[in-house]
């Protein structure tokens, strides 16, 4: 995608990371100082006076590592962790789930955990604690 800078657009620059060091006339709010694009190809538009704006694709270029689902046993045994992500009302569902699972799996130990906020992954210490203590994990409840 290309955009042509407006009257307040920055002057053309070959490297767009020199904000503050070139002869720019005014900050351009739509042209952050990105330095590279996905293809390495700059998008240039010129109209009238020499103006150039570089727009970079902000999407993640990385290809995730392909992972495998953990092999499942034929039956649940040991300890099952119920991880509450701290969303309102989730605790009601988890409490009921705990009771139902305890009735269905009387030989399984069920342990409750709660992470401090649903806005971030669980703290590393909590993750390690669960991984050390539990054989299965149920995480709830995102809404």
């Amino acid at each position, binding site marked *: 995608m290309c955009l042509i800078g407006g009257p307040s657009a920055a002057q053309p620059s070959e490297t767009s990371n020199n904000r503050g060091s070139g002869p720019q006339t005014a900050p351009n709010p739509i042209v952050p100082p990105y330095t590279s694009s996905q293809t390495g190809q700059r998008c240039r538009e010129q109209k009238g006076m020499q103006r150039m704006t570089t727009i970079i694709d902000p999407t*993640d270029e990385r290809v*995730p*590592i*392909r*992972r*495998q*689902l*953990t*092999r*499942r*046993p*034929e*039956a*649940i045994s040991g300890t*099952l962790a119920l*991880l509450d*992500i701290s*969303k*309102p*009302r*989730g605790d*009601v*569902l*988890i409490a*009921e*789930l705990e009771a*139902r*699972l305890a009735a*269905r*799996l009387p030989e399984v130990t069920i342990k409750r955990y709660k*992470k401090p906020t649903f806005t971030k*992954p*669980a703290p590393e210490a909590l*993750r390690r604690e*669960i*991984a050390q203590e*539990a*054989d*299965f*994990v*149920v*995480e*709830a*409840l*995102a*809404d």
Partner: protein
Amino acid sequence: MHDTVWFEIQGKPSVFIASNVFVNAAEAQSAALGLPEVRRIFVPHPIQDATDDEMRAKADAIVDEVIAALVD
């Protein structure tokens, strides 16, 4: 989702539960995390204004799914 994938990486069979407004988001995020097959269960929306009885009914409805998600 991040936590569930992390536990899978640690060798712990895991499943996460979300409301059904997250179906598409879960699909996209699980792929982005490299584990599109991550087990997930969806309960009917809404959640936060549901009564306790409604929340318990949602839990009751997925008990079998939860167990099935953790075993082969």
